[in-house]
Structures are given as C-alpha cells and as structure tokens.
C-alpha cells in the first residue's frame, strides 16, 4: 500500500526527470514518457479510491525531513477520503489533458515540446505532494511547487513579452498570499508545537478564538492568492497567456482549487473561527459575482473562461465558508470536469482558427466543428446548473447549504450569479458556434481537430454530464463520502437540515435562474432582440466599467506596482544599492589602494634602505623583548 502511494506521487516526478534531463533525446517522443507517467498514477489512484471507500486510511511518515530539537517535520503522506478524491480528480483530469496536449502542442519545436511535458509532469508531482502531504510544511512545498510550474507554463512562450509578464504577475501575486500562509504556519507551530495535520487538529481546541481567527484568516490569504479570489484574483485572467491545456489543467481544474482543498483540510481550525468562515463565504460570493460580471462583456474566449473559473472558485469558497466543506469539494470535483472540458474546447477552437481568440470574429463554427461544439455545450450546460449535468448538483448543494445555514445574502448573490453564469457562458457558445460566421476567412480555414484532441474532450464531456450523479451514490453520495472525515461541530446541523422540505423550492429557483440566463443569452445573441450592441450603447457607463474590468489592474498599478517600482528604482536602486552598498564596496577597495599608494613609497629599491629597515626592525624587536 505504502509502495502504491509512493508510486502515485513519484512516478510523475520520474517522468519529469526523464524528459527534463534527456529532452534532446526524447524530443517529439516526450509524450511516450509523460502520458504513462500520469496514466499509471491515475489507475493506481482509482484502486486507492476503492480501498479508501472500504475504510482504509494511510497516514505515515516516510522519513524525518527536518529534525531540529523540537521542530520535527516529516515527509509523510496522508490518504483519506478528502485526499483520495483530490488524487483521483487530479490524476484523471491530468491524464486526459496530457493526451490532448499531444495534439495541441503539435506545432512546437522539438525541445520545447519535451520542455512542455517536463513542466506538466512536474506540475502533477507537486500537485500530488500538495494533496497527499500529511503536514502543513510539505503541503506548502507542493503549494509553492505548483506555483513554480504555473509560472513556468504561463511563461512557456517566453519570447512573448506579455507571456513572460503574465508569468511574473502570477508568481508575484501569489507571493502576497503566501506571505499570509507562511505566517499562519509560524503561528500554528508556535502555539500548537507541530505542523503535522494529525497533531494540529488533535490539539486545535487549545487555540483561543482570536488566535484561531487570525491563523485561519492568514491561511485564507494564502488561498486567495492561489485560488484567485478578491483581492488577489488579478493574475488569473493574464495567466491565459500560457498554452490552453495549461489553462485547463492548472488554471481551471487543479492548482487554483488548492486553496479550497487547503481550507477543507484545515476545517478543524476553521470551525473554531466563525468570523473567518463568514469572511470566506462573503469573499467567495462577492468574487463569484464580481468575476461573473466581468465575464459578461469580455470578448476573449479564454478570458471569459478565466473569469468564469474565478467565479466558480468563489462558489467553492462559499461552500467551505458556510461549513459545507464536502459541497465545496464536490463543486471542485465537478468543476474540474466541466471547466477543464471547456478550456480544452476553447483550445480546440483556437487551434482550428490559428490562435484567434476574439469571439466577435467567430460564429457558426458548430457546422465545422461538431465534436468541439457539442462537448462545449455539454460543459456550458454543466456550469449553468441545468439538471442533470454535473454543475447542477454541486452548485445547488452549495447554495442549498448557504440557505439552510442562514446566509441568505450569500444565497441571494450566489443565485443571481448563477443566472449571470448561464448568460455569459451561453453568450460565448452562441457567439462562437451559432449564427453567421463574422469572419469568412477564419471560418473557411476552420476544421475539426484530430482524435487525439477530441477524445479527451469527449471523455471529459461524459464526466461533465454524469459526474454530478455521484451525489446520488449510496451512503450519502459524494458529500457523504467526504464527510466521513469532517468531524465538524455544525456539520451535523447541515445534515439534519438536508431532510427538510423547501429544498425542492430552492432547486426550482436555481434551475429557473439558469434557464432565464440561457434564455436572455439566446434572445440577445441569436434573435438579436434586444441587440447587444444597442444595449452596450444604452448602458455605456456600466458596459465600460465591466469591459475595463473595473479598472482593478490599473488601480493596482497606480497604488501598488508603480510605487513599488518607483521606490525600487529611485530609492532602492539609485540610492541604497548604487549609493550605499556599492559605496561601501568600492570605498573599501579605494581605501586599500590609497593606503597602498602611500606605503609603497617605502619600497625604494636601494639596498642600504632595506638594511636600515632591517636594523630598525631588529632594534624594535630586541627592545620589546628586553623591556617586556
């Protein structure tokens, strides 16, 4: 068992090492190593899932990584209901995205091709470390590792300035969050004396409420960075500069959900801090609404999906924030399918149109790209929350929990956002796949992609359609499975509320909202009544605010980035570095050379002078010897 767990985590690393070290040998054949390096763990993790379902748990130390006095941190893995769900999701989705990448990265030069698969495998390794870690520090290693791979893959086309900048933006924005995360770790260690989950949670009740609130808020800061929540979401839209499968894998399905996983993992701490829970839920729902509003008017295919990801992550945070950790994880699970799928479809469209991303230039593509179109629609139905597609079950579960937990405001905003979600995603569908082609030349060149790309899309579409049905599985369904480890205080109340009536009414409302959203999109973008262009004119101020994304990027530039760069350039560089540091270094050198210039006058070259020096030296030495 232990060997299997090790295999799951380390096979991707081996794959990355082979492709990374021998990239000039593997070249075009890189995927023959990279794909099995993910597929084998995927198969093993299914086996582990079965084992865990039968009640098997694993929490063991492989070896002591750091042992300094009382500070002991192991390399250890933890396998329980929560991590096995993540494990299966990550490996399964990654496998298909790796396969898809074979087709998508077709035009890359040889070495770059191997480099791409190296990064991708390395990413999966770090992601598995993140979800399997049995202590906070190892989790943080995974956390930073996926951040690194995200940086490398966003900047994959590093010759492009915008891609390189987007990579930096993602990395630096995450640093802001990680600063909170690390401080939280320090506090946990200081007050609980350990970083191992088992010990931390066993002793968590010793924390006072303010302290628990502080720790959880700091952890949440880390989560807002990694999972792109307000105020640190700005990096995710720019992260679309990377190859589309990367957006699909890292920036939709797996890495960005790490924050949700981390909070669900730390649920013992969060249960101690009701205030933090409130903050998480409110930040989540506001992010959901905020990102959805920006997606309404954006014309960039991938950016719409990026905003949609931010929005859906907001839902997950609502889930964990109202104490329905299992519902949050369930949404994470279904979202991985349908958002991964939609990114793959977007990549497929982009591939067919030679990199064109502007939806206003597309249209009518369904005729040319049947598989892409249909799978995309399945994904869109799933995200809109139309039953029986996956998103319906999980999103509805979250909203349901929010409602019964008494977060009426959160529920209301979440429901409105669900309508907006349905609208923008079908706007995207209608603009891309229906209507008349708006750019004839692009349309003529469009073609369906080879099976290596369409099959992963079909598989994920099946997942998007049916993954939600796990909610109906025996034993409480998906959430019941995850809830087996959520020994939470007010989780019981939620369970009790499950049986209540009124749930039916909520479901009707959310389905109705979704259908209204789709209907409005249909009217506006197929029937053209009301005409979207006219609408944009009439509500020009609102349109401009949304289209320019509330000028948040500009705001950050004005308040944080430009001052930082300015201070760095004019104070830290010109004064501190050039003036003080270089001044000290050069000053020491100049002082030495000055002393040398003076003292070398002693070197007269005349032998009698040296003899005098010798005599003087002898007299001094003998004098000292005699006197003392």
């Amino acid at each position: 068992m232990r060997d299997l767990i090790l295999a799951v985590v380390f096979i991707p690393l081996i794959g990355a090492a082979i492709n990374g070290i021998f990239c000039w040998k593997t070249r075009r054949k890189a995927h023959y190593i990279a794909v099995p390096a993910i597929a084998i763990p995927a198969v093993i993790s299914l086996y582990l899932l079965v084992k865990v379902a039968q009640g098997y748990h694993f929490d063991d130390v492989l070896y002591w990584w750091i042992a300094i006095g009382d500070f002991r941190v192991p390399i250890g893995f933890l396998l329980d209901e929560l991590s096995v769900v993540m494990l299966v999701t990550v490996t399964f989705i990654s496998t298909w995205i790796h396969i898809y990448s074979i087709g998508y990265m077709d035009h890359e030069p040889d070495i770059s091709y191997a480099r791409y698969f190296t990064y991708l495998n390395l990413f999966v390794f770090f992601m598995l470390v993140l979800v399997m870690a049995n202590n906070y520090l190892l989790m943080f290693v995974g956390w930073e590792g996926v951040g690194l791979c995200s940086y490398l893959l966003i900047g994959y086309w590093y010759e492009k300035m915008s891609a390189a900048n987007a990579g930096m933006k993602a990395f630096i924005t995450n640093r802001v969050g990680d600063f909170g995360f690390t401080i939280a770790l320090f506090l946990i260690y200081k007050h609980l004396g350990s970083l191992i989950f088992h010990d931390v949670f066993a002793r968590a009740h010793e924390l006072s409420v303010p302290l628990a609130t502080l720790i959880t808020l700091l952890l949440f800061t880390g989560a807002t960075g990694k999972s792109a929540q307000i105020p640190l979401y700005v990096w995710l839209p720019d992260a679309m500069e990377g190859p589309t499968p990367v957006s699909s894998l890292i920036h939709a399905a797996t890495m960005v959900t790490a924050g949700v996983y981390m909070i669900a993992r730390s649920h013992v701490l969060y249960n101690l801090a009701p205030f933090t829970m409130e903050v998480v839920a409110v930040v989540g729902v506001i992010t959901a609404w905020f990102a959805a509003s920006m997606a309404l008017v954006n014309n960039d295919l991938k950016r719409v999906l990026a905003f949609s990801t931010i929005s859906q992550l907001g839902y997950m945070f609502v889930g964990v924030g109202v104490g329905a950790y299992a519902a949050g994880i369930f949404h994470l699970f279904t979202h991985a399918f349908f958002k991964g799928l939609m990114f793959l479809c977007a990549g497929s469209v982009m591939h067919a149109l030679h990199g064109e991303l502007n939806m206003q230039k597309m249209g009518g593509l369904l005729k040319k790209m049947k598989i892409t179109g249909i799978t995309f629609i399945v994904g869109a139905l799933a995200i809109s929350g139309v039953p029986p597609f996956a998103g319906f079950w999980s999103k509805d579960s979250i909203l349901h929990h929010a409602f019964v937990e008494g977060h009426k405001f959160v529920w209301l905003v979440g429901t409105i956002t669900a309508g907006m979600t349905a609208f923008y995603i079908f706007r995207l569908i209608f603009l891309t796949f229906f209507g008349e082609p708006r750019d004839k030349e692009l349309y003529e060149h469009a073609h369906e992609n080879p099976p290596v790309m369409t099959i992963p899309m079909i598989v994920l579409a099946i997942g998007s359609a049916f993954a939600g049905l796990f909610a109906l599985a025996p034993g409480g369904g998906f959430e019941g499975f995850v809830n087996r480890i959520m020994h939470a205080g007010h989780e019981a109340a939620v369970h009790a509320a499950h049986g209540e009536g009124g749930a039916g009414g909520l479901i009707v409302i959310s389905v109705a909202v979704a259908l209204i959203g789709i209907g409005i999109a249909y009217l506006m973008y197929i029937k053209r009544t009301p005409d979207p262009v006219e609408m944009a004119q009439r509500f020009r101020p609102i349109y401009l605010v949304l289209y320019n994304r509330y000028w948040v990027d500009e705001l950050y530039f004005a308040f944080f980035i430009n001052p930082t760069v300015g201070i760095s350039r004019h104070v830290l560089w010109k004064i501190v570095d050039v003036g003080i540091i270089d001044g000290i270094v050069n000053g020491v050198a100049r002082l030495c050379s000055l002393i040398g210039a003076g003292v070398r006058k002693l070197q007269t070259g005349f032998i009698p002078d040296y003899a005098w020096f010798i005599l003087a030296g002898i007299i001094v030495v003998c004098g000292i010897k005699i006197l003392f």
Partner: protein
Amino acid sequence: MVMGLIFAIGVITFCIGALGVLIRKNAVVMFLCIELMLNGANMLFMAVSKFKGLIEGQVAVLFIMAVAAAEAAIGMAIITAFYRRRGGIEVDKAELLKW
C-alpha cells in the same frame, strides 16, 4: 677583564661592519663590511664558548666561516655580473625594484 675586552672587540667589529653596510655605496666595501659583521659575531661566539666551556659556540663559528666562504664566492660573482651590466658597482645603480 680579558673577557670584557674580547666582548668589546667583537661588538665593535660588528658595529663597524653594520655601519659600513648602511652608509657605504660601493658594493665591494659593503661586502667587506658584511664579512666584518660575521667575524664580529664569530668573536663573540668564541668568547662565550671559552667563557662558559661550551663546544657549541665553536661549532657555530665553523659553520659561519663555511657559509661566509660560499657567500663570498657567490657575492663576488654577482658583483662582477652587476659591474658588467651597469658599468659600476655603486649599489644605487640597482634601482629596478623601486616601487
């Protein structure tokens, strides 16, 4: 009393030699002065050896004389070569090592 006299002769010989090395410019004269210094030292060695009844002093003297002989040979060779190159044996002609 006799011991004191011998010591005095040794020290004075040494000092004459040292002064000569320090103030003369002629390399040969400086060379002679070095020999004087060596012999002054030898004198003191002998005196102490006799006075204390120790044999080591006399051994040291023999060594010094041997070294001085070798040194004289090499030194004269250097001075000859120097004379050929520089056209004189004044030591202030050797100034290439100046700062």
